[in-house]
């Protein structure tokens, strides 16, 4: 029940990052993604890291966390999860 409640409070997002905006302090992009995420949420975890068709990651955030993340340096967009269906 707790897990379900946590899921209900959070939504899944695809976070697009601008790879060229990565601060020099980071060696790898994944570190930068992780630090950006950590700056808005203690509990959120990266689900997928994307590097071929977009630069970024997916994660679960509250709306407040998503809004805060959107204001971070190097964020291109935050796209909510979408459900697709078979045809």
């Amino acid at each position, binding site marked *: 029940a707790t897990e379900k409640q946590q899921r209900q409070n959070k939504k899944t997002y695809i976070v697009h990052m601008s790879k060229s905006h990565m601060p020099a302090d980071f060696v790898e992009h994944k570190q930068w993604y992780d630090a950006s995420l950590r700056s808005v949420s203690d509990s959120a975890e990266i689900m997928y890291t994307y590097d071929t*068709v977009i630069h970024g990651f997916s994660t679960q955030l509250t709306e407040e966390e998503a809004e805060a993340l959107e204001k971070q340096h190097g964020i291109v967009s935050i796209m909510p999860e979408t459900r*697709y269906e*078979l045809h």
Partner: protein
Amino acid sequence: TTRTPMFLGLDMANNMFPASTSEGDLTVGVLDTGVWPESKSFDDTGLGPVPSSWKGQCEEGKNFNAATCNRKLIGARFFSKGYEAIQGPIDESKESKSPRDDDGHGTHTSTTAAGSAVSDANLFGYASGTARGMAARARVAMYKVCWIGGCFSTDILAAMEKAIDDGVNVLSLSLGGGSPDYYRDSVAIGAFGAMEKGIFVSCSAGNAGPSSYSLSNEAPWITTVGAGTLDRDFPAYVNLGNGMNFTGVSLYNGTALPDTLLPFVYAGNASNSTSGNLCMSGTLVPEKVAGKIVLCDRGVTARVQKGEVVKEAGGAGMILANTDSNGEELVADAHLLPATAVGQKSGDGIKKYLFSDPNPTATIILGGTKVGIQPSPVVAAFSSRGPSSITTEILKPDLIAPGVNILAGWSGAVGPTGLSVDNRRVGFNIISGTSMSCPHVSGLATLLKGAHPEWSPAAIRSALMTTAYTAYKNGEQLQDIATGKASTPFDYGAGHVDPQKALDPGLIYDLTTDDYLNFLCALNYTPSQITVVSNRNFTCNDSVKYSVADLNYPSFAVPFTTGLGSGGNKVTVLKYTRTLTNVGASGTYKVSVSFPSESVKIAVEPAALSFSQMNEKKMYTVSFSANSMPSGTKDFGRLQWSDGNHVVGSPIAITWT
């Protein structure tokens, strides 16, 4: 699939498509519900070693051993993090957390695209023949992204990334999610990345037809595939107590009804529910249907589920009648009880008798498989239709392919109806949807890629589109089964795919990544929106006048705006520029325009193009001049270039809004 290779002329084209190494070097990546590796369609007999460039793998998981992969099925992965984040942990008693297909859909689509040839394939004896994928020697890689609770964008994007990294040559996606802007659509975003690496991406147009503006997967770097019928049918005859007979379709294979006529009842009159006519679960009164044939109206719930409801209530058989949203479209199902689907007209005729006779009776007689049905193809009523709701200057769908009553491989985990009560297990199943037409095109694109390795995804699509046909051999336009009348380019795009002709299109409309970036500029996308779609920083040049109309697309969608308050016949001129690339012998092509309506004047400049060498490019301009027309008016035509041997055809769809 059985029948579609013949229907598409692939049997005749065997000598034209090189069946040796080139096709075997190519891999079709399919994003779907997973795969049933034990299907005979994944037999790898005769296939050479896995291409050395292949980086994919078969992932182990619940009910899935990597050793079941072979030289045919060379990749199988699953993506469930996004699904589990929303739905909670996968219930492994209901679905396998692995590439295993517990649904059947993924096995059907992947074997349609590239399944090996299997002789004597059939479903309960129906549609019997040798089943093969369109690219029977190509390899298959499955990326499982769809689960019981749906398919999620985070998983889809991850799967597309992995497929690209693995080295697929063609991507086939028989799924969709409405029509969001390209920068909000993970499939469009993933497809852009694939296109850029030379991967052909084919997607289903959707099953939301026959309504206009009902398309999915509309991005111009995607090939959007609608559905048409084959020349094959599975008739089942309804005999009524008044002596009248009607023809429907059925894939039932069980105990037949007795020769005598049985009591017949309308579900709406055998229910306590106001929507009893739909035969939804728990709505039929057993005392009123027991031992009778029940007529149910189509809609809201799955067709096979209605059969289950009738059977559970004690009904002896079911007649499923189309309503106006399906017209005369007949989709066959492997029902659990003797049943037949009938078109709206037949349904109305049967109801007339049912409501007028105090003691109506009926029976259903199965007719097996019939081929040579004409006219065929006809556009399926369910096939989603244009115009594009995102970019009205791009005509979608791009083309149609077989998608009605298609036999292909199936999962051993589920019966042919997909119902939990269906304990039957089959190696092949017959189902319908643009999900089925999409992998036909994916496989055909693989054949073209094998024959022309140097062709870009846009070139392959152009070849498929410009050689597609829009009329039957007698010259009449392809029909739309939803209306029974001639269909339009908003229904079939460039027409029905003709792979033999696509092999040698003469000329192609090519497109590069830069062309698509310019297209995004023409849409006035912001820099960040362009970055989201294209994964790069690209700045539109303020001094360049970008035009959507100049995207080098093989079709023409021309949206005029109705003049409001102008009070006169103000003529508007819209100019479209196109570039043709010669991929055949040298020659001179002359243009012809067919546009039956007087509403628009169409001028092409120049009227002839001469090509002296391979890959030579020539540009032309089309001017569409039109008076103001009432909003909602549509007119259609066709522009063709021909050198006498090749016909390079483009549909024209003009709208006023």
